[in-house]
């Protein structure tokens, strides 16, 4: 189903992607606060100054997550995932710090590489780009040992 949607996206407007929207939203926020960085910064100046198709995809993903959860009765306002709590305790600040750091590293890395799981792996690899396969291999190369290290059950 996701493959068909991806095909539909490429057929209509372009490949799906998520990480570019973070920089685009940064640009919008900076503009809102009257910063001139959007014209002086070499990276931000390459971002759109108005809503485009891809930004609406990002917005739609939030709405889609909400609707799917609403309809299936799986809306969930928990702050700390159960598996996290079983390993690191129920402390909210601790989980929030990790969630923040994770997001920071992901987007920092994704923007160096030029895409994320959706843009480079899902769409990129489907378009047979070598960049997509290389990025896919790289993210698993660190994500798997990190997950193993962080969430391994203590021997009991």
């Amino acid at each position, binding site marked *: 189903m996701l493959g068909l949607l991806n095909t539909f996206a490429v057929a209509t407007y372009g490949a799906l992607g998520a990480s570019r929207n973070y920089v685009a939203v940064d640009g919008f926020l900076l503009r809102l606060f009257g910063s001139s960085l959007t014209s002086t910064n070499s990276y931000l100046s390459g971002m759109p100054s108005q809503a485009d198709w891809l930004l609406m995809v990002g917005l739609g*993903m939030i709405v889609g997550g909400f609707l799917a959860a609403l309809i299936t009765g799986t809306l969930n*306002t928990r702050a700390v995932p159960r598996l996290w709590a079983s390993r690191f305790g129920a402390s909210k600040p601790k989980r929030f710090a990790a*969630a923040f750091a994770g997001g920071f590293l992901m*987007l*920092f890395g994704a923007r160096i590489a030029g895409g994320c799981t959706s843009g480079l792996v899902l769409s990129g690899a489907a378009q047979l780009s070598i960049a997509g396969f290389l*990025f896919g291999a790289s993210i698993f190369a*660190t994500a798997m040992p990190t997950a193993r290290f962080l969430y391994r059950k203590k021997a009991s």
Partner: protein
Amino acid sequence: MTTTLIIAQAASDTVGIVGGTGARALIVGLLTGIVFGAILQRVGASSFEMIVNMLQLKDLTVMKFFFLAVAIGSLGIYTLDSVGTAHIGIAPLYLLGITVGGLIFGVGWAVSGYCPGTSLVAMGEGKIDAAITVFGGLVGALVLALTWDWIKPLLVDPLNFNANLPDVLGVKPLLVAVVLTTAIVAFVMYLDRFDAGRKPAARGSTGETPGPATRS
């Protein structure tokens, strides 16, 4: 290939606009996103547990789903391409930046349990830590933008090729797509058996029941 590249350039012009800003583009984009988000939510990709268990090879549901999506997507895209209607934009291949960026990304992925796309979906579901991940992402993207002038000559400019697999192999893209799809389907079927063999063991060691009950 030339025709598709021209179309790709038209689809994402110089001011960074992807897919256009017309009312139709915006509406189709929103609907595409809603379907994308809903699919990710239903398959469990926006669940911290599902991702972390996948990374520990305890539950490969999401991984199998993604592999199949890539396979079907590549078949679909290159079938369209052979008819000449696809907006294909091949990502530039700069070995250093993509590898280093990917390695950094992987750590963040495992720590947060979300990726940049699924954190949006999870935020829509109401998960508060996912909203924090999105906020962290905004800051991370901003820091990258501010340091881009240093990072680009170091990681992006050197070893920069622009090629996809069919270009390098010198064969028709649709053929590569067919071969890739066959390989992925075979691999997923193998994973299925692997998963079926592993699941009872994983269940026993974690004391959790698989499926929706383990998602939170």
